């Protein structure tokens, strides 16, 4: 372990750009710079196809940026690092594993845990941790069920637990609740918020739901059409801790409307409108 890492630095993107390689490669991201302080919660919103998912691939180290750099706790992100947890719209659980065994999957992959799982005591310890996580999201009775026996919302909860079991310093969520009905979604906002308040990981949430972004995040990054640039970074008018009722307060309603107008303007004038023609 080298120690050029700074525990207080959090996540930092510096003039990050991405052009997909290949014939007529898509210029997805132009020049994105923003910082997320350690333990903070940032939401990324923007028109469809502007490059949000691509940006998350850069942050997680799955893709290298074409220009610029991403740093996590001061250290350059040069490839996948097990300090990141990921969740997607599709919970993509392994159908042959029970909920708890799905949650435990990352530990079988991450080096520092793999050796611990070889002993019986280590296994029991981590199983207990997984069980505790499942309890936190209200799935204590569903641990032994398989994904086919779970509802969409329950699957997404399992997926959240799986993204957190290896105690990542950064949680990246790409439209995690996009496929859920409105009630389940609001329910899961609470679940995610509580998890974040308890574990204090740095969270980056990509979402199409501006209310979701405003309710959960400390900062909302608004991206323009492709190639994405930052249009603005907005701060919701409420401090933490938050609750769902705040969504109905006039300041918050106005804030959400402001976000909506910005994205509407971006979509009206962006180059993607030409490209898709």
């Amino acid at each position: 372990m080298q120690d050029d890492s700074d525990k207080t630095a959090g996540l930092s993107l510096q003039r990050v750009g991405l052009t997909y390689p290949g014939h007529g490669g898509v210029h997805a991201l132009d020049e994105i710079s923003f910082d997320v302080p350690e333990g903070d919660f940032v939401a990324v919103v923007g028109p469809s196809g502007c490059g949000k998912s691509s940006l998350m691939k850069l942050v997680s180290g799955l893709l290298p940026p074409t220009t610029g750099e991403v740093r996590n706790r001061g250290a350059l992100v040069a490839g996948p690092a097990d300090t990141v947890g990921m969740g997607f719209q599709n919970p993509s659980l392994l159908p042959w594993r029970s909920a708890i065994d799905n949650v435990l999957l990352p530990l079988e992959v991450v080096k520092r845990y793999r050796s611990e799982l070889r002993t019986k005591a280590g296994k029991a310890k981590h199983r207990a941790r997984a069980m505790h996580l499942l309890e936190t999201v209200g799935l204590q009775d569903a641990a032994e069920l398989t994904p086919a026996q779970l509802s969409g919302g329950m699957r997404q909860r399992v997926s959240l637990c799986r993204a957190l079991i290896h105690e990542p310093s950064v949680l990246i969520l790409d439209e995690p609740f996009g496929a859920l009905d409105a009630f389940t979604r609001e329910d899961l906002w609470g679940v995610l918020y509580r998890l974040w308040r308890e574990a204090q990981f740095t969270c980056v949430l990509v979402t199409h739901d501006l209310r979701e972004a405003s309710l959960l995040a400390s900062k909302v990054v608004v991206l323009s059409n492709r190639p994405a640039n930052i249009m603005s970074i907005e701060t919701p008018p409420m401090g933490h801790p938050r609750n769902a009722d705040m969504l109905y307060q006039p300041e918050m309603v106005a804030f959400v409307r402001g976000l909506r107008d910005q994205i509407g303007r971006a979509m009206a004038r962006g180059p993607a409108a030409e490209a898709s023609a």
Partner: protein
Amino acid sequence: MNSSIWNARWMQALSPILFALVFLGLWQLAGWLTPTYQLPTVVETWNAMLQKPWVLLKHGLYTLWPTLIGFGVAIVVGVVMGLSMGMSKFVYQGAYPILVFFNALPKVAIAPILVLSFPSSFELAVWMAFLICFFPIVVNVATSAATVDREMEDVLRALGAGKWTIAWKVSLPQATPHIFGALKIAVTLAFIGTIIAEQQNANEGLGWFITVASANSQTALGFAALVVLGVESVILYAIFAVMEARTARWAFRSH
């Protein structure tokens, strides 16, 4: 409600036995009506089996071993190759046409050529069994391994998982029911390979035994050997059918 006796539960359980009895009855009848050297009756076949039980068992085992060995090697090589093919688009694209070609090639045609390379009947039988099972296994594993959910892959890759880890944790378990399904079919094919090999060049094994019995017009003895072969084949088929159903249980646990 259709409550006719033919749909009763006990009747359904009994029906395979009934049909087998009818089948044996028809066979017996046909045997009576034709000369023994053309079609022996059930009783004659049974007597032939009782006459030389140990000889039949010996040749049955001679046939079983190379089949199992060729089959086992085909599983190991086929699974490893199928997984590596599934992992790389380049290899998948490149190797698939060759596999299809060899899979489509009638293996009977290969036997007389392989005889030159493997004069020992045992080796020849192993190779034939291997060749016949190998291709369906590779194709099934590769196809199944190539269809890994993209986001599942991202989740694991983001944790530093390499291709082999993903293959081991996701592709292989996902492919397992398909593999057993392919094996179930392949194991019966494996016997074809062994029997062809033994009929080419051997002085033991059921393939050889049937050829000799037929040459001597001992048709009842040939039938007895066929029964032994059928039993071996069905037992192996059943083993893999059970494995397939067990490993595929997750695919149906949806209530």
